[in-house]
Structures are given as C-alpha cells and as structure tokens.
C-alpha cells in the first residue's frame, strides 16, 4: 500500500494594492514566505504513525503541478491552512474523481469538519495521534469511517507520541527545519487559530524527545536553521531553562515564538543568548494596553503592555532580536492606531516587525463573536485569511480607513530607511556585547 501525504501551507496577499507593496517592500512578505517554505510537521507525524509495511510519500503543493497528471496513491492525506483550503478541496476533488480516497486534516479541517467532509472520504480532527493508526487499519479492511478524532491531550506521552519522519525531508531544499516542543497556549487569545484549538490544555514535550527530534531534523540539511513550531515556547520557565541548557551544546542558530514574560527571567534570557537563539517572535498586538482589553480572557496582554519597551530592550540587549507582531483593527483601535504603532516601532528598536490585520479565522471565538455581531463582510472568505486582508467591519473605524491605514503603516515600516535603522540598532547591540 502506498499513501501520499500532501502539504499545502502557502499564504499570499489577495488585495492587489498590498500585493504591489509587497513587491516593492520585500520585508513585508518575508515572514509569510518563511512560513510557506517550512515543512509540514503534522504530516511528518502522520508518516511516523503509519505502519512500517505501508510506503509513505511526502509531497508539498509546489510539487503538484495542476497541469500534470495526478501522482496516484492508494490513499491520499492532505493538510492545509484556511487560506489555501479551497485549493486543497480542489485537489481532493480531483483525487476522488480519479478513484483515490482522500483524507483531509489540519487546523482548518478540525474547526470546519462538516465543510471539509464534502471533499473527503474521511476527515481527521485535532492531531493525528490517536486517530491515524486506526484510520489506516480501517482503510485496509475497506471500512474507512467518515470522521476520526485525534487526541486532545497526552499526545507527547508514549505510546501516543511518535518521532516525526524527518528523514522524508532529505534532499529537499529547506533552509529552515522545524520541531515542535509544545502544543497549545494558556493565554487563549480570542483571535488565535493555532494549535490551542486542537488541544484541551497546554502540552509540553519532554526535553529528551525534543533534543532527539532536533538532532534528526537538522541532520537532513547542510546548514540548518531551526524554527520551533510552537505558539509559546517559554510559558514554563523551569522547562525553558532546562531546554536551553540542553540545546546549547548542539551549536545551532534558531528561532521561536513566545510571549513577553520571557523577559521576566534574567537567567533564562542569558541562557537564551548563549544557546544560539537568534530571534524570538512575540505577539505584542498593540502598543497601548487600553486597546488590549478582551484580547485574551484574563486580560494578560493588557496587564503586560506598559512593560513592552523595557522587555524588548532586555531581550535585544542580549543579542537576541525580537520580531514584534502587531494586530491592526482590534476593537479598541481608532484611525490613530497607525501613527501610534509607527512611533512605538521606532522607539522600541525592534529588529523586525510583523504587521497584520485582525483576522477572524473560521471556527475561532473571534469568528463566532463577529458572526454573531453581523460584522463579517462575507459568509465565506477563507482564501482571504491571509492576515493582510480585511474581512470584517472594524469597531472604531471604517473598512476603508483600516485598509488605507494599513497601507500607510506598511509603507512607513517596511521602507529601506527604517529597515536600515533597525539593522544598525541590532549591530550596535551586538558590538556592545563583543
């Protein structure tokens, strides 16, 4: 038996004006390109959960030319984000028309299973752990069920835990490889469409598993840069310190996402710098606490916002750059927000900045709230879930004001002069540490 696993994780800007800005301001789409070029850890985990007597073929969507004949398998598994889900459904429909059964999975499918079921013989909800092995056995017996639910807890404990099949990446041109150390995030932000939606609670992998995975992942590429595919790596500071001591001897350069509380722990920050961590991405969301009410249920980000500048400085002064992420169009935002963010970015010395528009990803609490308030511009807009396209009526401004403000802010932030200032700031920090 041969199973084909196809990853579809591209993100692109739909609005023509923003696409044009992306052409002239390369940093604007940089992060999106990085995300699109990362391998699918979910499918590598699916591959590892597949019995040894089954041949597994891993493909990425750029390998699948729509003009070519389909590469045929006995069974196909497709995983995709919301922005590319319609293309995933189209590919699934082609396979099914060719007589190949299709299984769909991933975050979008987990949140919209009824929709996905219209294009699949089976859907897998949550992670594949706890679902895929029985799916394969059912398929062998000719008894594939329409829906399988993976585990929402205990996924990193044997026997559910498996080591992803990084060997399937060998020979592919990755400049970054990914490893997941945790699933979920206790902050539970309303807009978040990441792994917390498929977990019942924050789950962290034992450090020995993480290190073994990292060694396997970096062995498939000559010049590995490691990206941890986490939503919030350093929630648990004790785990974080132990992890950093364990990763340091590997001599890697790496990147991860976490929250601003990482700056609370000086020892952890020192270990972070020594470990080869080059950048951490932090969701600051908005420079002012007054705009951050209700972003997360405990108003944690609001309570932290007055220390953003101090925290960024503490982290960057150790040579670890911060990629500060802002969400424009929060309910507390008025048209003044664009100048406020621009001023904050300049004052903060952030080396990298990620500007996105609030996006009601289907199935999230934000989606349900805005749907209930009749603020969604269309019923179905999944291809516009790019983080750059406006899909709802903002509260404190018009759609037009948000779109115009975004373009202004992109131009202010992603121009050569500002980028050079950020680069110079980083170099001076590095020099001070030499």
């Amino acid at each position, binding site marked *: 038996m041969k199973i084909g696993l196809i990853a579809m994780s591209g993100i692109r800007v739909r609005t023509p004006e923003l696409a044009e800005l992306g052409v002239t301001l390369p940093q604007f789409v940089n992060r999106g390109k990085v995300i699109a070029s990362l391998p699918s850890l979910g499918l590598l985990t699916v591959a590892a959960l597949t019995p040894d007597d089954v041949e597994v073929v891993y493909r990425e969507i750029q390998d699948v030319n729509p003009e070519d004949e389909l590469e045929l398998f006995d069974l196909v598994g497709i995983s995709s984000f919301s922005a590319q889900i319609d293309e995933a459904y189209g590919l699934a429909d082609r396979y099914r028309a060719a007589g190949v059964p299709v299984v769909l999975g991933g975050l979008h499918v987990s949140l919209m299973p009824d929709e996905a079921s219209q294009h699949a013989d089976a859907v897998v909800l949550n992670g594949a752990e706890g679902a895929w092995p029985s799916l394969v056995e059912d398929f062998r017996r000719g008894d594939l069920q329409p829906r399988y639910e993976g585990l929402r807890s205990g996924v990193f404990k044997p026997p559910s835990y498996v080591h992803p099949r990084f060997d399937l990446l060998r020979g592919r041109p990755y400049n970054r490889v990914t490893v997941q150390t945790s699933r979920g995030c206790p902050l539970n932000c309303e807009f978040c469409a990441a792994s917390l939606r498929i977990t019942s609670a924050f789950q962290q992998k034992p450090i020995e598993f993480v290190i073994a995975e990292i060694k396997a992942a970096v062995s498939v590429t000559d010049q590995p840069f490691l990206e941890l595919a986490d939503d919030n790596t350093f929630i648990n500071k004790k785990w974080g310190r132990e992890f950093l001591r364990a990763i340091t001897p590997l001599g890697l350069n790496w990147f991860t996402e976490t929250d601003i509380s990482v700056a609370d722990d000086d020892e952890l920050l020192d270990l972070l710098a020594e470990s080869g961590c080059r950048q951490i991405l932090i969701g600051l969301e908005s420079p002012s606490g007054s705009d951050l009410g209700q972003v997360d249920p405990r108003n944690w980000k609001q309570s932290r916002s007055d220390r953003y500048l101090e925290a960024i400085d503490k982290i960057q002064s150790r040579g670890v750059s911060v990629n500060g992420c802002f969400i424009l169009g929060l309910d507390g935002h008025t048209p003044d927000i664009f100048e406020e963010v621009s001023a904050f970015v300049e004052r903060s010395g952030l080396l990298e900045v990620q500007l996105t528009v609030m996006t009601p990803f289907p199935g999230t609490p934000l989606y349900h709230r805005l749907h209930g308030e009749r603020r969604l511009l269309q019923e179905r807009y999944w291809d516009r879930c790019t983080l750059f396209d406006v899909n709802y009526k903002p509260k404190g401004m018009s759609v037009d004001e948000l779109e115009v403000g975004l373009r202004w802010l992109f131009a202010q932030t992603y121009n050569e002069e500002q980028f*050079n200032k950020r680069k110079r700031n980083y*170099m001076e920090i590095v020099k001070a540490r*030499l």
Partner: protein
Amino acid sequence: MNATTIEQELRQALTEACQKELVPIGLEDDLVHELELDSMASLRLLAVVEKRFDIRFPDHLLGEYRTLQKLVDFISTAQEEAL
C-alpha cells in the same frame, strides 16, 4: 596596515565569528552565499568587523559588503582617511 595584513586579520576575525575556516573562500566570493548566512548572521559579521577595525559601514550600504575584497577595500580606505 596594508591590504594583505587587513585580509589576514579579516579572515581571522570572521573565522572566529562564524566558527568556520575561511581559507577556501576567495576574495571575490559572496560571503553570504558561501557561509550560508541569514540576514541576522550577516549583520553580526559586519558588527564584528566594525568593532575589530574600529570602522563604521554606511547604514544604507550594509547589504553591499558581501565579499572579502569589498571589506578589505572599505577598511583600507577608512584607515587611510583616519591618518
């Protein structure tokens, strides 16, 4: 400091900074490509050179200094101007 001495010191500084032997890299080879540097690693390397030779690259030209030859030329000129 003549160009040869600058090149030797530069190779030593860069070898220490990126923990890789630079001997096989030619003067005109693209360091970013040869050493497979990401954007931050490139900046760190330039920072090391600035500190070692007490110079400052123009901010708007940071992306231009990608070969040993260009670095040697800039350092030579900067040192001559400082005399």
